[in-house]
Structure formats: structure tokens, C-alpha cells
């Protein structure tokens, strides 16, 4: 749960930065755009489990001075890297769904590109992508189990330990129920957010 919450905060920020980089206009920003594209391609293409092994076992194996060898640290870094790639694409879809006329209007009012993004585009974009964002976070929450590979005991690993001690599979079911107990409230919360947003939007239309 701690792994999930810490990663989530970093992912939300990091992914937005990548999405914004990718939406920068003009040839000047081509290198930054290219960087964002390469990043997303790379980390969406490599299986999460592989990233975790590479960073969690591979990097510490280099024994570089000053580089942490803590598996929890590398587990969180791996999840942030992989999920940021997915979430950046979700953000980008949101940003692109805001009609270009809105940016044009904002710019004609004298807002800079940054201000346009900050006050006009991103607030609308984020609201539109809340359901797919939640999708990724449920995925993230489940994938925290992969950090167990590096030796950190989380819920799934704990159930494996119990199963192996008794040759009885019930602890797996208990863990599955725990995961569901966490994701269902999250799903209902998002539903409520969307519904509230919709109500406000419709109220605005009537006025």
C-alpha cells in the first residue's frame, strides 16, 4: 500500500510533465518531443517484471558508489518509470481532446503557451481522463506485488509464505479479496467524481 501511494504521487507528476513535453509546439522543441516519445515507447514496450529485475538486481550489481541498493527504492522507481509511460499517454489523449479553438482563444487573449496549458487545457484534460487514470492506478496497485520479487514482503508474498508452510491455498483467496476490497471503493469514488463533474457541467449549461 505504501509502495502504491508513493509511486502514484510521482507518476501523476512525472507523467503530466512527459505529456506536456510531448505536446510542445514548433520545431525548436523537437528534441524534447522526441525524448518524450522515446521514453514512452521504451517503458511501455518492456515488461514491468523485466524493468524490476533490471533495476532491482542489475543496477545494484554494478556496485556503483553512491547508488542505492535498496530493493524498495528500485521497486518504486521501476513502477514509476513504467506507469508514467502509460499515464503520460492517457494525459496526452486528454490534452488533445481539448478543442484547438480553446487554446487559440486563450492565446488571442494574451495568455502565454504555459498559461494556456495551466489554466485552460490541463484542467479540462485531466477531468476527461479520470476514468482511464483510475484504470492505470488499479493496475499499478496490483503490480506492486511484482516488487516482492526483489525481496520485499508484500501481500502476495506473505500469502505465498503461508501457502508454502501449509500446502493450503486459502491465503491466496484471502489476498485476492484484500486487493478487491481496496480497488472497489476506489472505483466507486471515481464514479462519484465523474457524476459530480457531469452535474456541474450540465448546471453550467442551464445558467
Amino acid at each position: 500500500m505504501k509502495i502504491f501511494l508513493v509511486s502514484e504521487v510521482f507518476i501523476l507528476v512525472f507523467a503530466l510533465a512527459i505529456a506536456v513535453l510531448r505536446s510542445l509546439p514548433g520545431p525548436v522543441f523537437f528534441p524534447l518531443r522526441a525524448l518524450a516519445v522515446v521514453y514512452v515507447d521504451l517503458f511501455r514496450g518492456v515488461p514491468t517484471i523485466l524493468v524490476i529485475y533490471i533495476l532491482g538486481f542489475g543496477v545494484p550489481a554494478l556496485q556503483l558508489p553512491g547508488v542505492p541498493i535498496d530493493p524498495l527504492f528500485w521497486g518504486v522507481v521501476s513502477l514509476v518509470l513504467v506507469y508514467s509511460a502509460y499515464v503520460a499517454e492517457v494525459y496526452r489523449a486528454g490534452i488533445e481532446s481539448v478543442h484547438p479553438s480553446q487554446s487559440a482563444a486563450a492565446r488571442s487573449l494574451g495568455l502565454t503557451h504555459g498559461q494556456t496549458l495551466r489554466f485552460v487545457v490541463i484542467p479540462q484534460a485531466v477531468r476527461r481522463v479520470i476514468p482511464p487514470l483510475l484504470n492505470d492506478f488499479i493496475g499499478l496497485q496490483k503490480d506492486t506485488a511484482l516488487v516482492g520479487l526483489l525481496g520485499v514482503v508484500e501481500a502476495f508474498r506473505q500469502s505465498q509464505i503461508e501457502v508454502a508452510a501449509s500446502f493450503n491455498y486459502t491465503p491466496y483467496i484471502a489476498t485476492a479479496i484484500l486487493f478487491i476490497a481496496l480497488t472497489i471503493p476506489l472505483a466507486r469514488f471515481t464514479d462519484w467524481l465523474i457524476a459530480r463533474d457531469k452535474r456541474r457541467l450540465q448546471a453550467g449549461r442551464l445558467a
Partner: protein
Amino acid sequence: MRTVLFGLTLTTLALALVATATGNPAAPAAIPGCAKGSLNLLNEGQLTLATDNPAFNPWWAGGSKTKDWELNDPSTGQGYESAVAYGIAKRLGFTKAQVTWKAVPFTRSFAPGKKPFDWYMAQVSAYPERRKAVTFSTSYYNVNQAVAGLKSNPISKVRSLAGLKKYRLGASVGTTSYNYIVKYIKPDQAPRVYDSVADVVTALKNKQIDGLVTDFPSMGYITNVQVPGSTVVGRLPNQGGVQEYFGLVFQKGNPLVRCINKAITQMRNDGTLKRLEVRWLGQKGAPILK
């Protein structure tokens, strides 16, 4: 990988030399009430045995990599478990050709349902809790857990069980080693748990853990071949007056176990097990931590 394979070849060569030097065991006596035809077998007239793949040294040896076996082919009769299996087979009147092997992962060895083997052997500890799911044979090997660490780490100087408390220990999931850490060492830092012993070894190499806990016989390969600069800190004493042992895994309630137990007892009493232990697992002693 190359160095590992090379080291393995050396170990194997050494083992093979020892094997030829010790000669053949004496001809066994037949076991009353256990005629070959009367046994409850998966395939009549055949022993269908299973172990994990890869089958690790020193439990399996010979280095005979085949299509089906990544490291050692169990049918060579080399390595402690293979030798024990063929010893039992011989006492029950089976020829070498009448024993077939299947690769079955450890987790499937205790999965519910009909088992695809007569017995499974892969250093499975016969715990009382596990007896609810499977039937175990009597002991074919009494095991001690042991701790390994890097010589450069202060853990290598530890001489007592309590001295291990302040170190970060690691073990493979679902093993006695892990239970031992939690129950008897009770370290100050949460132990790390990995998918396989190979991953624990990596963690030790990476200094992500101070000490690796696994069964003593596996230590030789780990400290001599896999992790340069590592050493066996010591063997861990048995706790609560209970001797941990490896047992063969049978379908729950399989009557076959009765005759197999007789064969194992015979091998223990006539010194065969001891001899095989010296031949395949024999190694310099390590101190037992008190």
C-alpha cells in the same frame, strides 16, 4: 554463466572421481510383503518419479544436460537424491530401465488432484502442516539450515544465533530457511524473501542482504562457485527438539509409502544412506551456531 558452468564441470568431475573410488554398495536384501507386483503404482511395473527442473547439485549430479533437463538428468543415478531413488528402486526389485523421471515444479508437487508421479523428491521438508495435503516418507536426509555471508561483511565473524539478529537476512519463499529466520533468529530488520534461491544468491552478491539462509548441503555450491568471497558463517541448530528432514512426497494416503519407508529404513540401517551422504554431500564441517 560460463564460470558457473565451468565450476560445475569441475565439481562434477571431482564427484565422478569420488564415485568411482568408493565402489558399488553391497547387494540388497528383498523386503518382505513388498513384492514388485503388489505395489500401488501409477504405471504397473514402472516407478514414475519426479523432481524439479533444473535439478541442482549436489542433490543431482552428472551435469548431463538433456533436452528435458536443464542442469542434471536425474536418471544418471548421480547426486544424493538420484542415488537414493535408485537405491530404493533396487531394493524393491526395479531395474534402472524401469524408473522414469518427470520434471515437476515444486509448487505443483503439492497441488490438489491426482499426482502424475509415484513420488516426488526435491529437498522437500516434511512439516507436520504439510501432512494435511500430502503423505511424506520417513527421512532420507536430516537437514540443518545454514547461513552464508560475504567475508567482507561483519556477519562472517558471527558465532552465535543471537549475533545474527542485527543483520539483514534473505531466503527463498516457502522454505524452512525463511521460517527459521522468522521463528528462531527473529532479526531486527524484516527478512527479504525471494522467488528462488538463485535470486537470494544474486541479492547476496549485490550486498542487498548480509546473510543468505538455506539448507547446509546447498551451501557448498553457493559459497565455492556462485558467490566469490563468500563463506559459510555456520550451521543453524535444530530447534524445539525437532529434527528437520527431507521426505519423499506421495499422493495423500498412498499405501506405497509403507514399502518405500521399509526400503529407506533398510538403507539407513545398513549404512547406505550414510555412505551416499559422504559421497555426494560430504563437505568440510561448519560450526553450529549456538
